[in-house]
């Protein structure tokens, strides 16, 4: 008589912290969650990309009620937002935890694969091969192993109930390639953090020709632009522009060189890039006592003058003299909106104007004058010399200690992908059974819904047959329709 107990086995209740840690761990290990995280990241990237396009404006024009939403969209800097940073962080953590979680299983499959299989697996395989031989089962198994080894397959055999179970695989270490690939993604993120935290970047480091500028950022470097040159094509677009610079530290020249776009100049870990250029004016300004207030070049461009909004212009405050000075150059394209040009300057001329700065300014009203290159004039109490026109160069200067991480990550990422895709882990399972006439071996690949793996197996089966001098009988099981197929990839029996 059998006694059945309906009492549930006693379960040790787990502590809440343990339960929470377990849940968090499971969340980060979940493939479904990882896919959702990638999908959310993709949507945020799409939102950020479209923000830089005319699409939101088109939506607002088509659907006026959506205008407030579109304006919020334009105002939202997606790539510097908290949700974006959060999803990147979650994804990075998920990659790390998932990798740690998968490592033992992958290593187990590589180092200690399950050898014993079932007749059911072989019977239901979508493709399989059978070899009949007069040899005994162990002898045929041995021949099969030799033939598979000749095809660069690793083979492992195990005897079970008079049958020999075989496992053969090739490129097993390619399963490890997922780790460098995912590590690379974390390293790229880490590279970005390292660069932002310990590097610097100056997008508008402007130096007029002949002038010296301090770089700052704790480098102790100063840079002098010795020469700037540009070559134009017939249609007026720039072909080459180049800056020749001298880099100094504590007054001593430590490096000289030139840079063009795509050919930066490197000094130590600081890199100088050619970014842009424009017109500058070299000036000398003295006060009535003969003290030099300014003797340098001033870039023209970022400032707009009401006297001619189209023309390159600049403004500077001469605080010791109590005035603000604005400078306007001749119009570069006089045909464009000529009605706005109230100055009508000739090439080689420059318009200077001083305005009161502060309550105790020595002048009560603006004073302006047009000056030709090389001439000096008196503007109020100031003596101004328009030395010459010059060019200024816009450099970008950066130090990014995250670059080595990025380069290493790139190699790992591409290498990991290449190994994963082009050297896939191929596996074959077999059972060699004794028969009245000798033995029979049935082989099948672990290749469900994998058309390529099945073709490779058929080729391997043919090669094995030729090597052991037996004809292989291939059998195909028509796979069921896969219209809605979805299954978990599980370890074979």
């Amino acid at each position, binding site marked *: 008589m059998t006694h059945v107990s309906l009492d549930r086995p006693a379960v040790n209740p787990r502590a809440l912290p343990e339960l929470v840690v377990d849940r968090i761990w499971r969340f980060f290990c979940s493939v479904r969650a990882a896919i959702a995280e990638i999908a959310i990241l993709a949507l945020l990237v799409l939102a950020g990309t479209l923000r830089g396009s005319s699409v939101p404006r088109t939506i607002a024009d088509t659907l006026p009620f959506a205008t407030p939403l579109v304006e919020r969209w334009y105002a939202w800097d997606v790539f510097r937002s908290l949700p974006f940073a959060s999803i990147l962080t979650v994804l990075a953590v998920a990659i790390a935890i998932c990798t740690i979680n998968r490592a033992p299983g992958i290593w187990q499959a590589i180092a200690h694969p399950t050898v014993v299989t079932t007749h059911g697996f072989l019977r239901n395989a979508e493709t399989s091969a059978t070899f009949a031989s007069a040899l005994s089962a162990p002898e045929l198994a041995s021949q099969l192993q030799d033939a598979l080894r000749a095809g660069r397959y690793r083979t492992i055999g195990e005897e079970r109930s008079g049958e020999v179970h075989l496992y053969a695989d090739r490129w097993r270490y390619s399963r490890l390639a997922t780790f460098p690939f995912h590590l690379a993604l974390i390293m790229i993120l880490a590279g970005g953090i390292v660069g932002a935290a310990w590097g610097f970047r100056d997008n508008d480091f402007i130096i007029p020709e002949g002038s010296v500028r301090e770089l700052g950022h704790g480098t102790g470097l100063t840079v002098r632009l010795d020469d700037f040159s540009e070559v134009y094509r017939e249609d007026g677009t720039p072909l080459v522009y180049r800056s020749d610079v001298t880099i100094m530290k504590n007054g001593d020249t430590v490096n000289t060189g030139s840079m063009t776009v795509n050919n930066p100049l490197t000094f130590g870990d600081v890199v100088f890039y050619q970014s842009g250029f424009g017109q500058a004016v070299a000036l000398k300004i003295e006060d009535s006592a003969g003290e030099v207030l300014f003797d340098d070049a001033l870039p023209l461009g970022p400032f707009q003058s009401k006297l001619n909004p189209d023309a390159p212009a600049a403004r500077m405050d001469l605080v010791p003299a109590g005035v603000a000075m604005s400078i306007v150059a001749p119009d570069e394209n006089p045909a464009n909106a000529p009605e706005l040009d109230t100055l009508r300057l000739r090439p080689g001329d420059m318009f200077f104007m001083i305005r009161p700065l502060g309550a105790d300014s020595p002048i009560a009203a603006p004073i302006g004058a047009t000056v030709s290159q090389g001439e000096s004039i008196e503007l109020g109490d100031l003596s101004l010399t328009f030395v010459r026109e010059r060019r200024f160069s816009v450099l970008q200067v950066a130090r990014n200690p995250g670059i080595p991480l990025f380069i290493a990550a790139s190699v790992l*990422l591409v290498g990991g992908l290449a190994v994963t895709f082009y050297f896939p882990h191929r596996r074959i399972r077999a059972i060699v059974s004794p028969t009245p006439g000798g033995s029979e071996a049935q082989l099948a690949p672990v290749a469900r819904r994998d058309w390529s793996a099945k073709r490779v197996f058929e080729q391997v089966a043919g090669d094995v047959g030729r090597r052991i001098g037996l004809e292989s009988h291939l059998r195909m099981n028509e796979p069921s329709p896969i219209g*809605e197929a979805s299954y978990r990839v599980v370890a074979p029996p």
Partner: protein
Amino acid sequence: MESLVRLSFYFFAAATIALVTSAACYLVYAVGRIRLRHTALTTSAGTTVVSHGASLEPASLGIGRFATLLAWFGVAFQGISILLRTIAAGRLPLSNMYEFSSTFILLAGLVYLVFERWYGVRQLGAIVLPLIVAMATYVWLLPSDLREVDALIPALQNRPLMTIHVSMAILAYATFAVAFAAAVLFLIANRWRVTWLPGPDLLDDLAFRAVTIGFPALSLVLILGSVWAYRAWGTYWQWDPKETSALFTWLIYGVYLHTRSLRGWRGNRSAAILLVAFAAVVFTYFGNYIFGGLHAYGGV
């Protein structure tokens, strides 16, 4: 140089004719032929009733072979066109939308023909070739001044990086076009059970193989683009719309690969992801029409 550029254009015109004809033949081959049946029945009253019927049957192999031959002609003409332009420009033609799309036509045709040979699937051409023809039509519609060979602007003057970075982008897009075609064909074959179309397993595998070429190529595009950006602009990532749209595409194909390899997704769901992913490719390809940014060189 001008005569070489003109000759290059004539070869492009010849390629267009060959590809258009090839696309038509592939369509005929894939759709099959309509067979009309007339059956005459004599009734007991002595009258004759004729029944009419029509059915679809596989097209003859000859039209398929002819389509492949024409596609090879198209690819060869386009190859000569690109070669002549390369000689004229002293570099691979990759710097504006005309050159980019012309090279895409060549690579997409070549990638398709390689897959046709690997898998022995000719019906795929009924989707890939019309895509290539659509691209050729787009090239014809581009402003004619883009057909001239111009010197590179300073930002593009890095021939090794430009060659590899842009070529990889074209290779990625070409293989994604093949994957897209396989996904569409899969959905058709699976929905209507057209017996002479390739099996769903094969199409599913073909699409996956195409992505296993395209995805690493797109990864290289992002990496080499970053390296180039670092050399030219001092930062390897600027969140430029072209960069982020390529990243978006990469992420969608990442979803496809993860769902396929880790969740075991096959069939309709995988095919649907590939359709979305190819929409992202088209968005990235033509994105410069809706956003500016640092990649606004000659429309590329």
